[in-house]
């Protein structure tokens, strides 16, 4: 059997030198007169071990990492093609604790398969959901998704099945499925990983959504900061079309569904669903007032399902294994699994898919292993730039939509940024306002003007100018932004600001006091 070597093509692995490693392995193979098959798989999600090279052996896949190009010759000397021992040996991949502790439903194939091989996709359980869907009535598909308890993974947590049902019941000559792949939140990369590592699962999920609601056209709106994901999706769509997974007769059924990739242009606010729709239509990415809901009047005024990548990519496994199977994972009203992205100043950063319900402490200290710098964890921001900063005192909060809301936070797209004790929370609060000012679409006043006034007011606190009065002013401003903004950008910017003030008040004390305390 020809040896098979897996070298991730995920952009996280590329950022750490995976292409150089692949090149070194290729030239070492030819220098030694050896032949091997090289698969550029997705990432397993353990970025502290990337580039993670795996070799297929008779006893399973054996991992080596983090591999540098200069390690390659010695790997060959150690007989890594048959799993030989080396300083970079990690043992059998599946036995690595970070992977073993996960429940991979949505990311079941990511890192395992060749992302652009439909045979591989099929061999690992792909297409079963779509095969079931084409044999079901649309209302039955929607019912399955509703019963699974799946909620929007983009951050809002709205029940996916209910959204689909509205579109199913809307009468129109044309309906759309729009996938929101404008993953702009810092600390999130689940959408990127699945598009690069298992693009067919998203295509399958969108095709199922189309059949379920009567939509015949889909768009994946991918941010321009993700060129690798754009290329992977474009290639996968061509392959899916030639196979009949997309087109006038999906898998030979009477259902037509086709899709295309659209690339964003660097506006964070286009991750907001209505501004994304405007952008797709070729307009400024300005937020629309709701109602009308996109499900009734969405893209080009037509009924539109707009879902996040992970929501759509979770649908195939729900259809394949049933609503009950998915629903049995999780806690409370948060059902199923969630790909938690552990990022920033953390020892074991990566993607960890698990059932809802783990505590923040288990995730940060246990799975993440604490900070990369080895210093104490001061704060973690959960849910991206619009998410709250949590202190250690709240580390018993379970990962669940309602539990986070009860602590004045949100899980958002499930990204967690870890900060060590050198973080200045006044600076982080100021950045939240500054980011909102840079990215505001300008439609509503609280967001457009409030964010700039917020930066100025926090600067005055920082300079020690009437700190108490200005803190009260920031609090009042946050209240106005929270309740007066049209969308989550202005509406949620108060979360990081107010949580920083509430939990890390010492960082907002006037400078002389802060310095004296040190």
């Amino acid at each position, binding site marked *: 059997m020809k040896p098979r070597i897996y070298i991730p093509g995920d*952009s*996280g692995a*590329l950022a750490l030198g995976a292409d150089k490693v692949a090149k070194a392995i290729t030239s070492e193979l030819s220098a030694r007169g050896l032949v091997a098959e090289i698969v550029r798989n997705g990432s397993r999600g353990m970025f502290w071990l990337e580039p993670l090279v795996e070799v297929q052996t008779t006893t399973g896949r054996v991992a080596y990492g983090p591999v540098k190009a200069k390690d390659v010759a010695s790997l060959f000397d150690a007989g890594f093609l048959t799993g030989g021992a080396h300083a970079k040996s990690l043992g059998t991949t599946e036995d690595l604790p970070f992977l073993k502790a996960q429940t991979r439903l949505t990311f079941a194939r990511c890192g395992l398969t060749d992302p652009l091989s439909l045979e591989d996709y099929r061999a690992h359980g792909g297409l079963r959901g779509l095969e079931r869907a084409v044999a079901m009535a649309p209302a039955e598909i929607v019912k399955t998704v509703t019963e699974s308890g799946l909620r929007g993974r983009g951050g809002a947590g709205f029940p996916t099945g209910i959204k689909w049902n509205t579109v199913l019941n809307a009468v129109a000559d044309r309906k759309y499925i729009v996938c929101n792949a404008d993953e702009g939140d810092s600390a*999130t990369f689940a959408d990127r990983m699945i598009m690069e590592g298992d693009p067919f699962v998203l295509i399958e999920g969108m095709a199922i959504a189309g059949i379920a609601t009567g939509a015949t056209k889909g768009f994946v709106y991918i941010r321009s900061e993700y060129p690798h994901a754009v290329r992977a999706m474009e290639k996968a769509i061509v392959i899916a079309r030639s196979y009949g997974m997309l087109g006038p007769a999906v898998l030979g059924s009477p259902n037509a569904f086709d899709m295309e990739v659209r690339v964003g*242009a*660097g506006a964070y606010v286009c991750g907001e669903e209505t501004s994304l729709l405007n952008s*797709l239509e*070729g307009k400024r990415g300005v937020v629309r007032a709701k109602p009308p809901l996109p499900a009734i009047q969405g893209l080009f005024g037509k009924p539109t399902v707009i879902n996040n990548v992970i929501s759509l990519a979770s649908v195939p496994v729900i259809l394949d294994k049933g609503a009950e199977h998915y629903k049995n994972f999780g806690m409370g009203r948060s059902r199923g699994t969630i790909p938690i992205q552990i990022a920033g100043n953390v020892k074991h*950063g*990566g993607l960890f898919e698990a059932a809802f319900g783990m505590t923040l402490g288990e995730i940060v200290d246990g799975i993440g292993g604490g900070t990369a710098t080895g210093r104490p964890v001061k704060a973690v921001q959960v849910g991206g730039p619009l998410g709250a900063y949590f202190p250690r005192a709240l580390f018993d909060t379970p990962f669940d939509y309602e539990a986070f809301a009860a602590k004045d936070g949100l899980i958002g797209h499930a990204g967690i940024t870890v900060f060590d004790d050198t973080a200045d929370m006044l600076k982080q609060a100021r950045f939240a306002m500054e980011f909102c000012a840079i990215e505001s679409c300008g439609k509503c006043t609280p967001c457009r003007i409030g964010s700039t006034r917020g930066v100025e007011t926090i600067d005055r606190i920082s300079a020690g100018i009437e700190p108490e009065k200005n803190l009260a002013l920031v609090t009042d401003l946050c209240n106005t932004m929270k309740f007066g903004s049209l969308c989550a950008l202005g509406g949620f910017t108060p979360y990081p600001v107010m949580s920083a003030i509430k939990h890390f008040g010492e960082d907002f004390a006037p400078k002389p006091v802060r310095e004296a305390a040190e």
Partner: protein
Amino acid sequence: MQQAGTQIAARTAEIISELRGLEGPLLPILHEIQHQFGHVPAESLPVIAQALNISNAEVHGVVTFYHDYRKEPAGRHVLKLCQAEACQSMGSDAVAAKLKQLLGIGFHETTKDGSVTLEPVYCLGLCACAPSAMLDGEVIGRVSDPETIDEIVEAVRG
């Protein structure tokens, strides 16, 4: 100059005719124009407005809304440094300060010799190997490593 403007208009018209069949063709057209010219030339805008039957103001509004579209060509290299929270937690501020000093430019500026344009970016999705950067579309992780900074400076000066 007159001739250059005519050429831009002609090429713009070609791009439009290739893409106007798309639903919502304006962003794909602007992306392609920027890909061709390195920026979105002012000469292209009235051609687009005319072809898509929208006003010049609407086209101007769209071009200026999105951070990606450039009014002028960038340097030969474009270096984007992530400045979002996950990268902040790993010292992206210090990396930006260092590179600004080494290149002698600030964000949104191009070196006098036209070799490199420096820009902030808010998230490249490389948050578990922060701080990150993108040089001419290639991703770079853990850019705080002094060796990596040296390699970047060498690459953009070449």
